Structures are given as C-alpha cells and as structure tokens.
C-alpha cells in the first residue's frame, strides 16, 4: 500500500530531523531545565513557603514548553529546506505547496506531543508515581497540540518572510527567550511583577498553554482554562491563515 502524500512527507520530515544533534536541542534542553531547575530552585521555592514541590510545578510547564520547541522545529524545517534546496525540489515533485505546509505542521505537532510525552515520563521518573487524571491528561495534550500548531505557524510565518540565516536565528533565539521566560512555565504569575512583564505574561500564548497543562496535570482545571484555550484556538486559526498566505506567496524558485 502506498501511503498518502501527507504521510510520506511527515515520515520524511521526521527521518531527516531526528539526528542526534537535533534531538539533544529538542529534548535534551527541556529535560535539563526540568532536572536542573527542578532540583536547583526547589530549595528557593521551599524557602518562599510553597505548598508543593517545585518539580511538580515545573514538570507540566516543561511539557507545555514542548509546544514552543515543536514550533521552532517547524520553522527550522522550512528554513532548512529552503536553505538546502529541498523545498524547491519537493515542489517540483508529486506534492502541492499545501501538502508540504501541512506536512511541516503535522510533524511539528508530532514533535510537540512526543516531546511532552517524554517530559511526562521524565517527570514520573523524577517525582515517583504520577497523579495525572485521564481527563486532565487529555486536556494537557490537547493544549500542547494547539500550542504546537500556534508556534509552528508563528515560526513558519517568520521563515517565510526572513531571508537571512543570521536574522532568522537571531529572531528565533530572541522569541524563544521572551516566550519562555515571560510565561508561567518556570514560575507562577504574580502581581508583584513589573507592569510591563505582567502584560507580557498575560498576552503570551505559552502562559495559557502552561496554565492549562498544569491544571490538567494536577486535575484542577478551571473555567479560565477554557477561556484561555478558546482564545488560543482563535489566535492559532488567525496565525495559521497568515502563515499559509505568507508561505504560498513566497517565491521558492528564487532560493
């Protein structure tokens, strides 16, 4: 049986993007955050009077963080395919532009969900027995899936516009830093933060994903999480349309 075009493209994307170097960045970095920050900051958080172990706070945050990492994978795939000529080569092959685009989006999604599952396994190994309820777990992975598409679209949008390798890498590093640290992945939102940071926290989609993932992980979902997901879904839809338009209009033939 011949797999459909989209499946073939996803298989290809996974196969060429699962080299050891990429995996270290994709999974090793968040895993190290989980271990070093989880244990390193535990004493600080405990001194501040936290009621639970910091690791159990950080673990769902790092799972949510996989959505961002998945997005960077998507953007990097498009970037690398343009840089190394495979985009134009695939588009003179038996694929449409839309199939190629969705191939990247679904691959990002797979990386996001796969990475989150590995973070969950790591958290279980570090924390002992997991208490993730089934419903909460489904919401957790749903939020990460939506987040992967959001950040995948964002990075695709950027890679469709940016022409220089240095500029693309600089934007990616800056965004990764801003999105990660102006969110509730590593620490909870606090009104004691400077106002500008509070605004950044509030508009950062990763905050919504991390909050929902955390509450799902602990079986404490609230109506606010529902609103957060609804907003994220709308933002994702808008960004996906923008990214698709930008990509379809970009001239791959001049690469």
């Amino acid at each position, binding site marked *: 049986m011949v797999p459909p075009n989209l499946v073939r493209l996803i298989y*290809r994307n996974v196969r060429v993007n699962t080299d050891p170097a990429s995996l270290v960045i994709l999974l090793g970095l968040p895993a190290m955050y989980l271990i070093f920050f989880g244990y390193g900051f535990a004493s600080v958080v405990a001194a501040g009077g936290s009621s639970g172990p910091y690791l159990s706070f950080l673990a769902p945050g790092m799972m949510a963080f996989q959505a961002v990492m998945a997005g960077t994978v998507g953007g990097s795939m498009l970037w690398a395919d343009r840089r*190394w*000529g*495979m985009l*134009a080569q695939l588009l*003179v092959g*038996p694929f*449409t532009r839309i199939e190629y685009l969705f191939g990247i989006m679904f691959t990002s999604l797979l990386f996001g969900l796969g990475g989150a599952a590995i973070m969950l396994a790591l958290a279980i190994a570090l924390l002992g027995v997991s208490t993730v309820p089934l419903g909460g777990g489904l919401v957790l992975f749903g939020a990460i899936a939506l987040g992967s598409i959001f950040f995948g679209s964002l990075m695709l949008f950027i890679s469709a516009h940016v022409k220089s390798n240095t500029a693309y890498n600089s934007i990616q590093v800056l965004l990764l830093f801003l999105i990660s640290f102006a969110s509730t992945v590593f620490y909870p939102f606090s009104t004691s933060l400077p106002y500008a940071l509070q605004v950044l926290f509030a508009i950062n989609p990763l905050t919504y994903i991390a909050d929902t993932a955390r509450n799902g992980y602990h079986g404490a979902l609230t109506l606010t999480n529902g609103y957060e997901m609804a907003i994220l879904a709308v933002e994702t839809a808008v960004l996906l349309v923008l990214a698709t338009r930008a990509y379809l209009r970009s001239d791959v033939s*001049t690469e």
Partner: protein
Amino acid sequence: MLSPSRFPGGEPVISAERIRHSYDGRKFALDDVSFSVARGEVFGLLGRNGAGKSTLIKAMTTLIQPTSGTLRILGHDPRREGRKIRDRIGVVQQGESFEFASVETNLDLYGFLWRVPRTVRKQRVEALIDRFGLGEFRRRRSFDISGGQKRRVQVAREFMHDMDILFLDEPTLGLDVLMRRVLLDSIRSEVQRGLTVVFTTHNLEEADYLCDRIAVIEEGRIIALDTVDNLKRLYGGKKTIDLTVSASDAGRFFPALGAACGASASITTHGNAAVLLVEDPKEALVTIVGLSQRLGVQLEWLTIRQNTLEDVFLRSIAPPGGANGPS
C-alpha cells in the same frame, strides 16, 4: 548526436506558445518564447548566464507561472494541472538540494517520496550507487561530501523514480570528465527507452553529444532553434580558422585583418586570439599570412577546422553589426 528521425509526428510532450515571464513586472526574463518538444527527444537550451534558460525550466516544471502565453506539458496546463505534470517529470535543478542524511538515505528517501516500492527502491539504490560511483561515501552525510560528489548524488537521485520527461538544469556542473560521461551516457540510455530530456548547459560539447535539437536563448528570446547539424549549416557553411598572435601585436593586427577580409569572414576576438568563420579558407589563409608579413607580425597559432557548436553559439549571440559580430 542522436538521430532526429526518431520523432515522426505525434503530439508534442512540451509545447510553448508565446511565453512571457517577468519577475518584477518591468523586465521580461522570457519574451515571446515558442517551441515544442517531441516524445523521446533531447532538447538543449543554450545561452549565457541570465539568458532565461533556468526561468524556462522553472516554468516548465511548474515552479513559476508564465506571465502570459500558452504552455502545455504532457498535454496539461501547468496553471491548473501542475500536480499531474509533476507526477510525471524529474528535475535536476541548478542549485544544490539534499537531505540532512547519508547518501544512501538521500536516494532511498527520495524514492519513498516518489512512491517507489521498498524492494524496487533497494535495487535502484544499489544500481545507482554502482553506476554513479557513490560507493565509497554512501554512508557519509551529504553535508560532508565534496561539491562534485553532491552533484552526483543529486543527479543519481532523480533516476530513483520513473518519469516521462527529465529536466536537467546544468547537471554536469562540478562533475569531473569521467562522471560527466557517465551521466551523459545514462541519459542517452534512458532516452533510448523513450525518455524525453530537456537539458541546459554551458558545455557545448555536451550539447553536441547529446541533443537532437537546440534552442539558443538570449535575453529571454529564442534566437536560434534547429538540429545541431542544421545550426552548423545555417551559421556556418563555413570553416573556422583559429589564430593567435603575440599580445603586443593583437591591437593592430586584428583590426587590419578585419578590414582585409571584409564581408567574406566574421571575426571574433578574445585577447590575442581570434576565431574567423570563412567561406573560403584558402583565400583567408593567403590574406592572413600576407598581412602578417606586411605588418611584421609573428603568427603563434593558425589552424583550420570544421565548425563546432561553440562557433554557432558565439555567432548566434553576437550583436549584429558589432565589432565582433557576424559579417
């Protein structure tokens, strides 16, 4: 050259009528281009850098849509039926393209993308590794091999799948002489089995060796289109004289030679070398030798030979009436 008698009638697999394309809306990279290619034909596109060859390949392979004109590939309109066209063509683009994987994975993965069954892929990978001499670096990543090796992989990869038309945009760029011949012979053997090939190159010997017909493109327009022999006759019917003098004499000798030969020869000069296309080589030799004696110029090199495709090319793109133009 392959025989043109292999294409008796039949629907052309490529037909272009008055194709124009502009990237910026001002200058036309393709301007009023019309031609057709028969099934099983090897069609060469010759032209200088930026003449429009690659743009034409991109239009035929659906990467860009012509601004105007009618283009049919295998009976399909690239605007509406791009997918049907791409299903049946192979393309070796001018630029590098490879996966971040080993050489053999590059081949296998490409076959997979083209829906080639696993067992067939396995056989083809081995056959292509053997044919293109990829064995010694088959397990190395494409990033870690030389430019010429990458080019071999890129060309070999295209033979992983079946196709009706193969587009090759300067496929021998960076290949050594041996590999160039391997590639050209591979193409010839596929052509014998019915493959149609559209081929751009700077190497005129290759075009002479491989092509049934050639279109010379200059500034987006086809300025000559015929079989290689007819082009030689059209632009020749003449002999070529190659001539070299010392660098210090070139400045006074070549203008005097041009004046002495008049309309009976066309002269193209490059530094201290000149190429003359002449009707009567004996008469031209008398003129050259007499003039060199009169001016006290030492002739360093003087030969008479048959016209080559290079002569045709140089003559066809030379500006009419220019200093080095055809007479």
